[in-house]
């Protein structure tokens, strides 16, 4: 069976209510299209996992899809707060949000351990920080050789990992490059994997040691050109910094936010329609 299908089908088939879902990306290659499809399909009680939750997680939280978030830094990069995230944590709107908080070094290590099929990760870290007081998953271990005290955390193995990448071939092999974050680890650590790509090419042409994810670690590959918008895809399009700035006032206001989700996510058929609508409405006069 081909791994290639529509994003609508992939999300419907693979993401279940209650799943833990990592939509990873470190500023680059954020899977916005997939996030919107999750909102559109009204998935519920998700545990969202990401080192750097940003606007798409703000949207998922505000849209009521999320029960819990596992993360290490949640903000609108270069702009400020995630207001929907804050509203959920501070005021329980639209529902209380349980949080499980890590540091980047911790979370990167737990993804690494998950990909390596180890039950826990070891970290030279967390010392002196209050984080371990509030995250009971962080424990301490004594090195059997040196007696040093080190932090340990359970490995991270999401039910579903979703990422965006540059290219796939017809078989469903995926090639990505640039800032690749924890995507390989998140993919290899997950039970199921969905990857959206800019294009499907006849033959991938990675350089020696280029980063390829073979089709046999992936469950669905979906062609969604621009699927990382307003984040960027190296080699395809740049980051729409203006949208990140414009998001701030939308997200500050529950009403505006609800209207935005309705207009740009629920009322459109797919990501292409959303992008067309957004480009028309939100950034008038900007031709870039």
């Amino acid at each position, binding site marked *: 069976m081909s791994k290639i299908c529509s994003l609508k089908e992939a999300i419907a088939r693979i993401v279940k209510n209650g799943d833990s879902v990592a939509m990873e990306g*470190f*500023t*680059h290659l954020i899977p916005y299209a997939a996030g919107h499809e999750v909102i559109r399909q009204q998935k519920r009680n998700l545990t969202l996992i990401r*080192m*750097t939750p940003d606007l798409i997680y703000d949207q998922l939280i505000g849209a009521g899809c999320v029960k819990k978030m596992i*993360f*290490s*830094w*949640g*903000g609108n*990069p*270069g702009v400020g*707060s*995630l207001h929907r*995230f*804050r509203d959920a*944590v*501070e005021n329980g709107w639209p529902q209380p949000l349980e949080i499980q*908080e*890590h*540091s*980047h*070094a*911790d979370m*990167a*290590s737990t*993804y*690494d351990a998950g990909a390596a099929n180890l039950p826990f990760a070891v*970290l*030279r*870290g*967390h*010392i*002196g*920080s*209050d*984080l371990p007081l*509030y995250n009971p998953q962080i424990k301490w271990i004594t090195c059997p050789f040196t007696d*040093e*005290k080190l932090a340990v955390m359970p490995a991270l193995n999401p039910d579903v990992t979703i990422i965006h990448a540059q290219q796939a071939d017809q078989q469903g092999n995926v090639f990505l490059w*640039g*800032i*690749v*974050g*924890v995507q*390989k*680890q998140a993919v290899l650590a997950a039970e199921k994997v969905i990857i959206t790509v800019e294009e499907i090419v006849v033959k991938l042409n990675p350089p020696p040691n280029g980063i390829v994810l073979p089709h046999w670690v992936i469950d669905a590959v979906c062609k969604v050109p621009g699927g990382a918008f307003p984040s*960027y895809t*190296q080699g395809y*399009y*740049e*980051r*729409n*910094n*203006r*949208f*990140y700035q414009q998001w701030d006032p939308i997200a500050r206001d529950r009403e505006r936010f609800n209207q935005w989700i309705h207009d740009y996510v629920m009322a459109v058929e797919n990501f292409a329609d959303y992008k067309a609508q957004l480009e028309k409405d939100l*950034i008038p006069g*900007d031709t*870039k």
Partner: protein
Amino acid sequence: MNQYTAEEMMTIAASRKLKNGVVCFVGIGLPSAAANLARLTHAPDVVLIYESGTIGTKPNVLPLSIGDGELSESAQMVVSVPEMFRYWLQGGWVDVGFLGAAQIDKFANINTTVIGDYHQPKTRLPGAGGAPEISTNAKESLIILKQSKRAFVEKVSFITSPGHLSGGDAREKAGLSTKGPTAVITDLGVLAPDPVSKELVLVSLHEGSTVEQAQEATGWHLKTNDPVPFTPPPTPLELSVLRDLNERTALAHSGTH
């Protein structure tokens, strides 16, 4: 005297702390501005690392996010984030961690997690990010933030990234062998930990600022060197390089990207 702003002075004072040739793990925002200014002035061989995995970056404009394409395209190499934190930061290759903060206390402990109770927060901040392990694994760290009573508190309600903990040898006793924060650069002056007590002391004032202003913007009784020297003012070169950088940056970010 009014030829430059307090923020310019702060950025320039911070940039001077970065020696040529050191390996610097850079936070986004003010640290990134200061580190790149250093690279473009007295420290052309400084190695800038951003936690997105970019090593040896030489961005032409300041990044808006930690993972801008500009960082990746101008980098000497781009590695995965687990490799960044495991091999490069934890591996001990970073000389200087350059951090911002939402709140800092008397012993240079940083809070970027939460104001108020953790479970019933008054303000939920973004969280830890890379800072806790930068502050413990880098050989030393520099902190840059604007001085105010809200930001400079006697004791942070949450230690996200340890500075000198409760002062004295507390940091060492906790098992940390790195130096920790060696300077805090603000819009009013520069603070540094007392060699013994590790309490932050005002060691220089930017021209135009006073000890009283600094005290007013600090939530504890601020000790000062006596007398407090003035920070050397920006040189014309520092100012023009910084302004060019800021101008290029503003221009680049004013479009859709």
